[in-house]
């Protein structure tokens, strides 16, 4: 599904990603771990097309297509979803209108019919249950005045509505209390399908108790320095990042 080959990216003149290689197949869950500043959030944002980064080398193939050549909206329409570490507040636009606009834009791009507000409301009934939320959240402005936990839950709600093929969760666990973490993780687990894939970007092993990865990769100074199975995460938790030659956490 996703093939990242020798990916390099800068912020301004500063090189953050220094040659990433990663292959993700349908049905797999990959955890990308690493200390602060290792480049893991940059990797997530570059995959989604964040305008603040410049790709300086390498390539990314998504379903055989050149992902980096696609506009952010076209990546989303092709099934790529990034759950933001810091979801953006959009005052004046209701969550419901935002979700319906996104849903219909993706539908249209894929040759489907737009859903009218009534049919969309039915769909939302079902999706809200996934994140244990009620209708009230749809009339609030997008992320405006949301707590940290609500913002993360809203990201998972969007993921549930848009049903991506490749979901990239950027530090979705950070700042969550244990209840919010459980709700978010259960939402992600229930959205797992054999034809979909997930990349979890996280600093801590905690999230991986809830969402069990097939592969764990450790990022340090813009490179993957070690890959392994889920037990690698436990080992990192016990021994810290220094153990494998990464910089201090």
């Amino acid at each position, binding site marked *: 599904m996703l093939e990242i080959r020798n990916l390099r990216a800068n912020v301004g003149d500063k090189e953050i990603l220094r040659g990433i290689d990663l292959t993700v197949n349908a049905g797999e869950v990959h955890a990308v771990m690493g200390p602060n500043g290792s480049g893991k959030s940059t990797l997530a944002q570059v995959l*989604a*097309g*964040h*305008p*603040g980064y410049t790709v300086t080398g390498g390539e990314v193939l998504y379903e055989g297509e050149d992902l980096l050549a696609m*506009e*952010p*909206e076209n*990546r*989303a*329409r092709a099934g790529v*979803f*990034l759950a*933001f570490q810091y*979801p*953006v507040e*959009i*005052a*004046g*636009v209701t969550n419901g*209108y*935002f979700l319906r*606009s*996104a849903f219909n*834009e*993706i539908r249209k*791009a894929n040759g489907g019919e737009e859903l009218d507000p009534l049919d969309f409301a039915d769909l939302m009934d079902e999706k809200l249950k996934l994140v244990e939320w009620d209708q009230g959240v749809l009339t609030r*402005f997008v992320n405006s005045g949301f707590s940290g936990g609500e913002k993360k839950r809203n990201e998972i709600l*969007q993921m549930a509505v*848009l049903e991506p093929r490749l979901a990239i969760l950027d530090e979705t666990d950070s700042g969550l209390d244990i209840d919010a973490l459980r709700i978010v993780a259960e939402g992600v687990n229930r959205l797992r399908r054999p034809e979909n894939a997930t990349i979890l970007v996280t600093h801590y092993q905690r999230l991986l108790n809830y969402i069990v990865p097939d592969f764990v990769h450790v990022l340090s100074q813009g490179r993957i320095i070690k890959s392994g199975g889920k037990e690698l995460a436990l080992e990192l938790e016990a021994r810290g990042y220094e153990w494998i030659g990464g910089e201090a956490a």
Partner: protein
Amino acid sequence: MDRGRSGVSASFLQELELPPVRPGADEPGWLSALRRRAMDRFVETGLPTTRDEDWKFTSVSAIGQGAFSRPDPNAVYAASRASLHGLQFGVPEWSELVFINGRFSAELSNLPDPSRGISAQSLSTVLLESPGLLEAELARVVPIDQAFSALNTAFMADGAVIRVAPRVQAPGLIHLLFLTDASAGPIVTYPRILIVAGESSDVSVVETYASLTSDVYFTNAVTEVIVGQNARVEHIKIQRESERAFHVGTVEARQTRDTRFRSFSFAIGGALARTNIYSVMQGENADCTMNGLYLLHGTQHIDHQTRIEHAEPNCTSREVYKGVLDGTSHGVFNGKVFVRPEAQKTDGKQTNKNLLLSEGAKIDTKPQLEIFADDVKCTHGATVGRLDEIGMFYLESRGIGAALARRLLTYGFAADVLAEVTQDPVRAQLERLVFERLETSVR
């Protein structure tokens, strides 16, 4: 006649020299005298130039050079009920006075039942039926010392007089719809409105200025609002003139003790438009709210000047104006708040925020706070910004195309000030106008 300073072309002056629309015989002496004084005053001041501080960013020379004639009083302008549809609010209980080319149209209007303590009549009717009635009220709130107000006073022919008896709460809203059809040539109209809210009364008035065609014309309007003790007046102005039109309008309120005046100015039309919204709080414990939204595209020039005068203690004022500017348009906002030495415990807050959608759009914003009392709480601020790149990315990362993302963010920018319009059908119309504008111009 000294034409040196006026900057008014010969053709426009010839029009001005015509006798008033209503010949003197029809008119009470006080009104003829008022017109004369106003005309003298105008001749003295002439049209403002950009050397005048109040007109620094807005040149009205194009108005002075225009050849506008007053509409032929005998012409019949056919506006069907159907053509008014998009300009109305669809609430049968609300009253509506429709004016075509400055003249009241009884057949298109729906007047309130005067037995309920609310009367709304055309100015021409009031002057004809009770010629003495307005002497003590007309041109008292809006003086004739400004050029355009003087011109309006000299040439006003029709408009509306709204009166609410003490302790009467108007059940619905009163809509004044000024429609111009200048397909036969450039015309000028001088709508004049007087709103008198009795003690402890409550009334909401909407003024709409619109055209069914895209012709050149000039609207010069004046609205005077007298807010009786403990009364509440809500005033909404919707300026959606033809995009080739000129519009200059002043709304001024005089507030006494314990009054509330809420104003909203929505401006989307006109090639060159200037709206003045003024209020003087002359009694204690009064509250004044002024909000507005202007949307400009193409080569439009839209200017707002507001003035809130705190003349007595313990009054509050709140003001939020927002602007969205596209194309090579030019917006102007000048918001003045004066706090007189007597006006202790004043609480005032003013904000002006602008969103520039293009490289060529321009805004001149000038918040102005002048405080002469020492125990006050006043803040003001202005911002000029562009669409947030990270907000755009967030929407795009959800599959929303760049054009729709820009529209959503722009709409979101304007939404909070629109929410200040508490009358649902009015807000719905304004929201629709914003949506339509964004759909056609934000790509």
